[in-house]
């Protein structure tokens, strides 16, 4: 078990390191000189040099990369002497645009993204698993075919098309929901809830469709297993067969894909947040991309990759706990 864990942790570190390096190289090579951008219009070559020195942009690539990497773990200091600014670990640098620390910017936006992700996850799990179960019970009947048709539709709607249609229908035409406004939960819980309702629905529909199909396929497959037949032959009540023998193995794969989907969503739902104007990590990414704010893009990319990798690992660990058939030694 310990060897398995160590192996996974090492693999995780390698993947994250590669993500770091890859993003850094791409931005190092591609993006226009940030010092020129920061300096603005009335700029002298000396001022540019000063900014470059402050940001450490005058150093060779490997040195810059190393400074960035070590900043993640032990923090780093910008500038020298009286102008020195301490950036504590995990230091992702400072935004080129607003000069705020990137770590702080991300942490500030994380609650919104988390709210969006958690609400959507609850919705899609409930809807997906229950629809999948209904579909499996009524296999081949009208209900099953209807649900299957719905899932194909749900998987096919691009989420911005769905978002715009919902907004048009619910806000503009029918007036069922108020126009989205940024309100903190403590001030007006109802408006707050209404604000998040549409993003939750939009994000959950595609995933719910996938989960429905997965649940349906798994349950149908499990019901054909020998041990289920044995349980039935023993005379167990159908309810007990379902609860004890069919559901648990059928739902384990759901855990796997749920962990990855949820982790991915925590790192920001870029399109949905942009469409609904929610100030989450996804919107931060979208905004900083248009402004070419390299440190922020790096920070968000790293966070998203980190979440996916950690999510993957948590899922693997959970899997060994839920499914006794998976043995740690052979799985690694």
């Amino acid at each position, binding site marked *: 078990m310990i060897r398995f864990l160590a192996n996974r942790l090492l*693999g995780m570190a*390698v*993947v994250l390191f*590669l*993500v770091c390096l*890859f*993003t850094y190289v*791409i*931005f190092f090579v*591609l*993006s226009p000189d940030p010092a020129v951008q920061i300096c603005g219009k009335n700029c002298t070559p000396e001022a540019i040099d000063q900014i470059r020195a402050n940001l450490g942009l005058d150093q060779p690539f490997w040195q810059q990369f190393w400074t960035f990497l070590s900043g993640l773990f032990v923090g780093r200091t910008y500038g020298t002497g009286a102008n020195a600014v301490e950036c504590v670990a995990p230091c992702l640098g400072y935004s080129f645009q607003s000069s705020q620390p990137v770590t702080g910017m991300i942490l500030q936006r994380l609650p919104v993204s988390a709210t969006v992700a958690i609400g959507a996850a609850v919705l899609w799990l409930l809807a997906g698993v229950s629809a999948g179960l209904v579909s499996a019970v009524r296999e081949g009947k009208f209900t099953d075919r209807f649900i299957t*048709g719905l899932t*194909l*539709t749900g*998987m*096919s*709607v*691009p*989420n*911005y*098309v*769905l978002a*715009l*249609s919902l907004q*048009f229908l619910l806000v*503009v035409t029918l007036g069922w929901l108020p126009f989205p406004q940024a309100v903190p939960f403590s001030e007006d819980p109802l408006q707050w809830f209404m604000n998040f309702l549409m993003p939750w629905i939009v994000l959950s*529909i*595609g*995933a719910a469709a*996938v989960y429905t*199909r*997965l649940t349906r*396929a798994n349950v149908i497959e499990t019901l054909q297993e020998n041990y289920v037949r044995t349980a039935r032959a023993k005379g167990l009540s159908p309810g007990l067969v379902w609860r004890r023998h069919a559901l648990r193995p059928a739902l384990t*794969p759901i855990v796997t*894909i749920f962990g990855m*989907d949820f982790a*991915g969503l925590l*790192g*920001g*739902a*870029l*399109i949905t947040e*942009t*469409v609904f104007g929610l100030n989450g990590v996804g919107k931060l*990414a*979208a905004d900083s*991309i*248009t402004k*070419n704010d390299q440190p922020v*893009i790096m920070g*968000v*990319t790293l966070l*998203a*990759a980190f979440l*996916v*990798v950690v999510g*993957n690992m948590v899922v693997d660990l959970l899997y060994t706990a839920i499914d006794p058939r998976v043995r740690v030694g052979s799985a690694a």
Partner: protein
Amino acid sequence: MTFTPTELEAEGAAGGEATGDPASSSPPASGRRLVRAFMRDRAAVACAAYILVVVLMALTAPLQVLLSGYGPLEFDQSAVDPNLGGLPLGWGGGIGADHWFGVEPGNGRDIFARIVYGARVSMTIALLATALTSTLGVVFGLIAGYFGGRTDMVISRIMEFLMAFPALIFMIAVLSALPAENRQALLVVVISFFGWPYLARIVRGQTMSLKQREFVESAKASGASSAQIIFKEILPNLSSTIIVMTTLAVPGYVGTEAGLSFLGVGVVPPTPSWGQMIASSVSWYAVDPAYFLFPGAFLFLLVLSFTVLGDRIKKIAESGEARS
């Protein structure tokens, strides 16, 4: 993100495990049977028909624009009302004999022409990206699965890395940083770069199990080279998986292209794209819903058709394999 192909492909992984024995079913008979099974499925036929229409639209775009009389880049100020901030004149966003799908508010460009040319962009990018990802996925999957050992480890690590990467953020960042010329080729490359591991993973798994089968062993014993075994013995057995996976991947790429164009980093204006049209309809949709409705509906139906088609092909392929 609904439009990443990941989710669809994760499912394909679960379904595509069974590979039949090729010797027991002769190809022509099974081909005819598959076609007959397909023709009986009304939904599948409807979807195939819609895709065909879009493909024809894309191929004959210049002809159709000649028929309708307005090009995709032509401004028609007579179709919009300058007093209302450029709102199209007439019902449904200016639908009429002149402009079949109405006009864009503001500058009066013909929506029909832009939809037709947008189909071109959409189909070209999606199909090229599919071709490229499939090639990469099959080749790397075969290599990793067949040779195993260190080769497999390296390829698997690269795949893990690419799949852990927040592809959407990255695609946007790269595309916005790169120069705008030849944007369509760039889109294909960027989409494929992150897309191939999903197919490669499945091809790898199946290759690993096929490698153990008797017919591969007998080929090996009779002195066939690795290349011969891979292409003559293993690849034909993967054909149904590859067909299913590619059909299921197309809608993902149609969606990705439209999504990137929606976010403003895809196809650059003035080249029309459905995603871009949807993005520019956002500020008008309260007063001119038709402007949003046309590209939205065309995009949704195209993705839906490919998804349904892929789903049906998968089912037919699976049942065919089960029977043989």
